[in-house]
């Protein structure tokens, strides 16, 4: 089997924040009734984290569950673990109206680290990036300039951004521009 390759070959940029294209990362879309017991078990068993509440990102040790919509979560795991995880989740959901889909290769993931992560993201998105508008551990699905994106803050100095793989280069360009060392605003 060929080696998985992340879209930008783990590109890196240092400016107001450090931008790293991380990945490949395992991502599995799970859709169905999020209140159903077997669906919650299917999501929490392979990740070892709590089922997230509305808009929450429930993550630990590179694994996690992101709340995407009232009937959808995104399960995060190591790229190599995806086939096994998809199989075990599918087995756990036999007889339940649900969807399990491996979307790892359809997405690109960026990690932003530095004191200005809120500011860099706020330059690119109409979302409220204030600490009240986006508390730590809450996923924000929104757009960055012209493309859809989702991001969440692990801490005040670390954010993770997910976008479609086809626009990875565009998003990297956006982030580099917004993180240009001479472009500090100091709003947050």
């Amino acid at each position, binding site marked *: 089997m060929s080696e998985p390759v992340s879209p930008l070959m783990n590109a890196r940029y240092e400016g107001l924040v450090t931008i790293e294209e991380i990945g490949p990362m395992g991502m599995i879309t799970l859709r169905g009734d999020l209140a159903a017991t077997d669906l919650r078990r299917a999501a929490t068993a392979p990740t070892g984290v709590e089922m997230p509440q509305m808009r929450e990102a429930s993550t630990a040790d590179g694994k996690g569950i992101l709340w995407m*919509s*009232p009937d959808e979560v995104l399960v995060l795991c190591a790229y190599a673990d995806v086939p096994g995880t998809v199989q075990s989740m599918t087995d756990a959901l036999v007889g339940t109206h649900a969807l399990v889909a491996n979307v790892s290769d359809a997405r690109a993931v960026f990690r932003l680290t530095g004191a200005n992560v809120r500011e860099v993201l706020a330059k690119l998105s*109409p*979302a409220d990036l204030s600490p009240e508008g986006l508390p730590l551990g809450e996923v924000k*699905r*929104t*757009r960055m300039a012209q493309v859809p994106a989702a991001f969440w803050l692990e801490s005040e100095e670390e954010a993770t951004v997910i976008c479609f793989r086809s626009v990875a280069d565009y998003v990297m360009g956006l982030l580099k521009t917004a993180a240009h060392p001479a472009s500090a605003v100091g709003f947050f």
Partner: protein
Amino acid sequence: MLTLLCPCCGVQADETELAPGGEAHLKRYGPGSTDDDFEGYLFMRENPRGVHFERWRHANGCGKWFLAARDTVTLEVYGTYSAQTTEPPEHIKEAITAKHPGWSWREFA
């Protein structure tokens, strides 16, 4: 700037994150209906100066449809509510009545 509160995910979404879906509370007339009903369903739309009911989709967000009541002149939003309703809920009607006593829109008032 128009922002609407998505009732499905609780996000105060910016207009640019939303996709407009036209008029709300249309009743579908399909095969077997009269020509007049079918024409009305396809083509006849309200174009009010004031209170209006619209469908919106939280496209760059949770992806769900919802309905909104707003004023086309002032851009005031009276409220957003579930798309799984056939008429505006009471609290929306009351919010509109507080600003526009005697308002009406299609068969609602």
